[in-house]
């Protein structure tokens, strides 16, 4: 019988399992801004073009991100879906990840326009 997918941190104090499509997210060390891992190994503040992984590939991408300590802080795997060309948050932490990617919901001046 196959093992259950690995238990993973899903941000903050929440835990989940490594099921389905994932992106690697973290906060940039220098300014704390939310960033996402792209296919070429670079980090960007827009989720739209983030690399999407599944299963062991996701865990390997996370492990690689974890060693990039001079670039990012606290990487973890978040649930995503691919909507055409664009990657968007999904799953149980949908609201949290939407706020992380788009900015606080309370004042439009704080929003991050590139991820509307």
């Amino acid at each position, binding site marked *: 019988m196959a093992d259950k997918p690995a238990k993973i941190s899903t*941000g*903050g*104090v929440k835990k989940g399992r490594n099921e389905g499509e994932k992106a690697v997210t973290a*906060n940039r*060390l*220098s*300014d*704390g*801004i*939310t960033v996402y891992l792209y296919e070429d190994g670079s980090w960007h503040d827009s989720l739209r073009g983030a690399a999407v992984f599944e299963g062991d590939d996701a865990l390997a991408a996370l492990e690689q991100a974890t060693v990039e*300590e*001079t670039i990012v*802080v*606290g990487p973890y795997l978040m649930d995503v879906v691919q909507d055409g060309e664009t990657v968007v948050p999904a*799953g*149980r*932490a*949908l*609201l*949290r990840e939407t*706020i*992380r990617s788009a*900015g*606080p*919901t*309370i*004042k439009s*001046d*704080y929003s*991050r326009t590139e991820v509307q």
Partner: protein
Amino acid sequence: MYRYDEFDAKIVADRVAQFRGQVARRVEGDITEDEFKPLRLMNGVYLQLHAYMLRVAIPYGTLNAAQLRKLAFIARTYDKNFGHITTRQNIQFNWPALTDIPDILDHLAEVEMHAIQTSGNCIRNVTSDQFAGAGADELEDPRPWCEIIRQWSTFHPEFSFLPRKFKIAVTAAPQDRAAVRVHDIGLHMKKNADGETGFEVLVGGGLGRTPYIGQVIREFLPKDQLLSYLEAILRVYNSLGRRDNIYKARIKILVNELGAEAFRDMVEAEWAVMDKARIDLPGDEIERIHAYFAAPDFENDPDTGDFDSAQGADKGFARWVRHNVRAHKQKGYASVTLSLKPTTMAPGDITSEQMELVADIAQTHCFDEVRTTHEQNLVLPHVRKADLYAIYQKLAPYGLGSSNAGLVSDIIACPGLDYCNLANTRSIPLAQRIQKRFEDLDRQENIGELKIKISGCINACGHHHVGHIGILGVDKKGEEFYQVTLGGSAAEDASIGEIVGRGLSTDEVVDAIESLISFYLDRRSDGERFVDTYRRLGPDPFKEALYVA
């Protein structure tokens, strides 16, 4: 107000220089995040959902104009032009870059401010009555004692790594505006049978996932023995408090597991063998600290100018006076609450322009003093009544003229999921929806005193347990739900609110709050506040009202 001496100035400057080096080493990769995290936390730097957050200490909520202007400058230069007043009377900046924080700390040091001990398992900022030194009802100004505690607790080598964070509040008025009963240690100044003033000492209060009201372990502590007694309490806690389980590490758990009497016996035993003379301050040092808090140079019974006539002519001003202006101990003066709860801003947020306006008013009309409150407002403590109308007119264009202090829209709300990494739900948008629903000021005034407090998770930073109506955000399979508690209070009649049934969805919760309030309005007796009616009738009828919505 206290001014730094050469030692204060040096330790703060040294600390900034040390942190600058730590940030540089972290950015260069010379230290890991695991090594750096406790260092940044010791300097008030958290990492939130989408940025760092810097929490700056405002000792017992007292600020001068130069400090407020500096905070405005920092908000404008390094943040998004606003700061957020917290329930520990501190200010938080929500968007500073890590690499800018050493410079921000240098700016703060120029005006005798810092972020030391605003985080971590140490003794945090001592909080107090926002009307200290002004209130007509106080025994004496509690702030010299807060300052004495601040100096004793800053970098105290024995208490820098406590089992968990530790919070102390001091008040000197019968009406408890500092929530002393829900602190690790609450100090309530009272007189004994001989007419001497001292401290009633409460321990083991607190909110979070296991809320408790503090218990009295000493009815009367002579003032000059304050520090040795605090040290005895902290020693017992430091040696017996649990370090194996973060959820059981606060002193409230220890006090409640041992029982207050057993805990008191341990403290008294520790205190009895202590070298008190080494710890307690000599009389001249106590006097020296008191001198910093000498009453301002009040005029003797100044003319009240247009204070009365303006209330007749301007209903808005009259309303503001009813709710936001309080009696002062000095004839001809008043204290003013500047509400940071307009519907257009997050509760407790203040822009740079607002800070600068308040700084100007404080300098011209209030002996250069401003206070922050644990209810996330500001106070001008000492204003001549003759100046009030002119001040009121200056506030409105800046969005600071809301006449809602203590009313239903004067909501405490934690940052919640809009900022906080630990949140289940958002708090601020819910506060704003409730404020909008009860926007009508006549309606608010008719409802009377009603304290709504909202937390986005069980950590209870929004003090929901002690709200007359408390609201706790819970995550149900990724959806935001809100659990309502009723009958809490943080004042002298302190109580923990009772949970009344299932959580409510985002769509239901504002209607449900409105039904509760309508039920109260129908059933209240003369002069009863919401919480009084709740206490008289009990939870059941309110529960029914909540779920018919």
